[in-house]
């Protein structure tokens, strides 16, 4: 697949594909670590703000920014999935088949990652940050 492309295009396409595969779960990782640690450490210290910024707002940022990242990765993975369909003679270009598999994996990973971030956001909406 890549042999016909200029090296710079091939590199950019490869990076874009890996973003489509892993962008969502990386966003969810950021969300989990940021939202959890901000909430836990601030409450443990007996505060309800983070350096003057309301704790609820900080948690909301830790939900919204990763959600935007996961949604972007989802869009990229859908585009990749649609454009990388192997033809009937897939054996001739196994790179295309492999890339299509990665796009499918990325698409569903992004859906799950976005769902987890949204559910975490719902929890932030209904639960006071430091309630035990």
């Amino acid at each position: 697949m890549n042999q016909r492309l200029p090296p710079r295009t091939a590199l950019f396409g490869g990076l874009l594909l890996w973003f489509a595969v892993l962008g969502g779960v990386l966003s969810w990782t950021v969300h989990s670590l940021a939202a959890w640690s901000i909430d836990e450490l601030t409450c443990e210290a007996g505060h309800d703000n983070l350096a003057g910024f309301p704790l609820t707002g900080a948690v909301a940022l830790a939900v919204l920014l990763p959600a935007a990242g996961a949604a972007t990765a989802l869009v990229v993975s859908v585009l990749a999935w649609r454009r990388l369909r192997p033809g009937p003679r897939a054996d001739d270009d196994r790179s295309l088949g492999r890339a299509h598999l990665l796009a499918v994996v990325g698409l569903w990973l992004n859906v799950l990652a976005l769902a987890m971030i949204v559910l975490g956001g719902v929890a932030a909406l209904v639960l006071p940050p430091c309630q035990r």
Partner: protein
Amino acid sequence: MASSTAACDTGPGPEAMASLSRHWAEAPTLRNWFATVDHKRIGRRYLVTAGVFFGLAGASAVALRTQLAGPEAGILSAWEYNQLFTMHGTAMIFLFSTPMLFGFGNFLVPLMIGARDMAFPRLNAFGYWVFLFAGLFMWASVPAGAAPDGGWFAYVPLTDERNSPGLHLDVYTLGLLFLGVSTTAGAINFIVTALKLRAPGMSLNRVPIFVWAVVATSFMVLFALPVLNLDNVLLFLDRRFDTRFFDPGRGGNVLLWQHLFWIFGHPDVYIIVMPALGIVSAVLPVFCRRGIVGYPLIVFSIVAIAIISFGVWVHHMFATGLPQLSYGFFSAASTIITIPSGLQIFAWLATMLTGRIVVRVPFLFVVGFLVTFVVGGVTGVMFALTAFDQQITDTYFVVAHFHYVLFGGAVFPILAGLYYWLPKLTGRMAGERLGRWAFGLVFVGMNLTFLPMHVSGLLGMPRRVYTYPGGLGWDPWNLLATVGAYVLAVGLLLVVAGVIHALRRGEPAPDDPWGGDSLEWATSSPPKPYNFPVIPRVHSLHPVWDPRTAESTGLGADGDRILAEGRGTLLTSELDGRYERAVRMPQETLKPLVAALGLLIVFLGLLLAGYWVAAAGAALVVVTLGAWLWPPRQTPEEADPAVGGGAV
């Protein structure tokens, strides 16, 4: 559908075959028994050793269930009970499940990807010896009366020096650190093997599901195990040198242990189950006479579980008083992770629905897995919900749940895999009738043992108690569970009897007795030391059902895939399996054994506070590794890449 690769009758000539045998065969000497680096022999040793540890842990469980058969029983003292239940859990998790599945991986991964050995054969041998010594290190503490006694997750402050004096928990921390060396070495080896030694043409979308599962598991091991190792180092330092990591009175944090333990512990559930699910995906399609339904979605499921499992650990800590919003984040992930697991279940059901089922013993164990794993999965979803979890935490309901997950999710697939690959492992067929009896007893015994525990748990029976008072409504459920444990034990003994019978009197196995689709069925049963006379060229996800792969090992065999002039295998590219070059593989050597012995001396020295002994052991390890890594003297011919310059 019919096996085609094995049927090809042309390929390398007699001279090439003789040369391959000369380079790969290990002379049957006592030295070579200890020095072997053959992945098949090492894989079989993993299976047997893990099976022995399973027997010891199982015998412990029967003793525990006998004690709990009725109220106020006095068969075991609390002191003995605590050691036995801790060793039962620790051994089942660390010394049986993972090593057993690593054993299958060791034997099968190179065969399934068309390679001649693991990427690092000496590291592979080293991993086995370390596993054996670590297992002996831990089990030897039982007759010495110094076995771990703080439960398999060893919560502080119960396990600190003040509350658990003696060597018990030092055996635990050091034993797991010792074992971790083996698991880490094995994981690295699996990853490099699967990424670099696949047969030409085996792009990522043609990799068998079992290999995907082993690689994902190996990545999980590499990320999860360092956290457990850190936890154990900190506890050992607290106990031995009075550091303060877990002492809240002196600036430590008692929940730090739990966080670190479960950051490892929950992925470890999947580290155990994932390769077993890979076995199911390998076995089931063959007995449904079709390819697996939803291959890309199963790959997605494996990758998703491997990643998300690192974000759910706090659901083991829902009763520790953390902020509820924190619980919400982890509850969300714990609920979502059931989706990829469920997806695999539906893919297997669809495979059965659309296939033509042939009921043989491996298939029966797969069906047993499906039933029990779904029950364990359903109670698992319940634990993801904070309110429910807080009601039944630390009761027998939890014990019932994780035995359905781990016995259902790992032992049934392991037994399915054992019956399925026994012809390839031993060259003998197992008896069908004895296998069906074994399945029936294991299935009935397993459910009779663990189903009643749901009820006793809901009735409030706490886990980790060595006895209980009568008249609380727990008595009949405990008696049923104990009867079930004995039925289960008889069933497992029948499995052992079946394997021994097959080894002594089993019918010789053909190369492909089941009509399998992956490359291990394209070679002899048991395989020759070099695995494949010609490294095949792969054209599809089902290479043995694909005549083009057969052609690649017969008339279409290239010299660069025979590699007869040396002990060589092929390197290919990571993503698309493109041919790169040939590499030379190392010969048998005693260095892995000596290095593992050095590590044993290190850990014995640390355990018994003989720090000079530990230093001597460390010196032995360093010297051995130096000799191991010293560049070999090679003639220009030996360094020829066609034969393979530089052993991998």
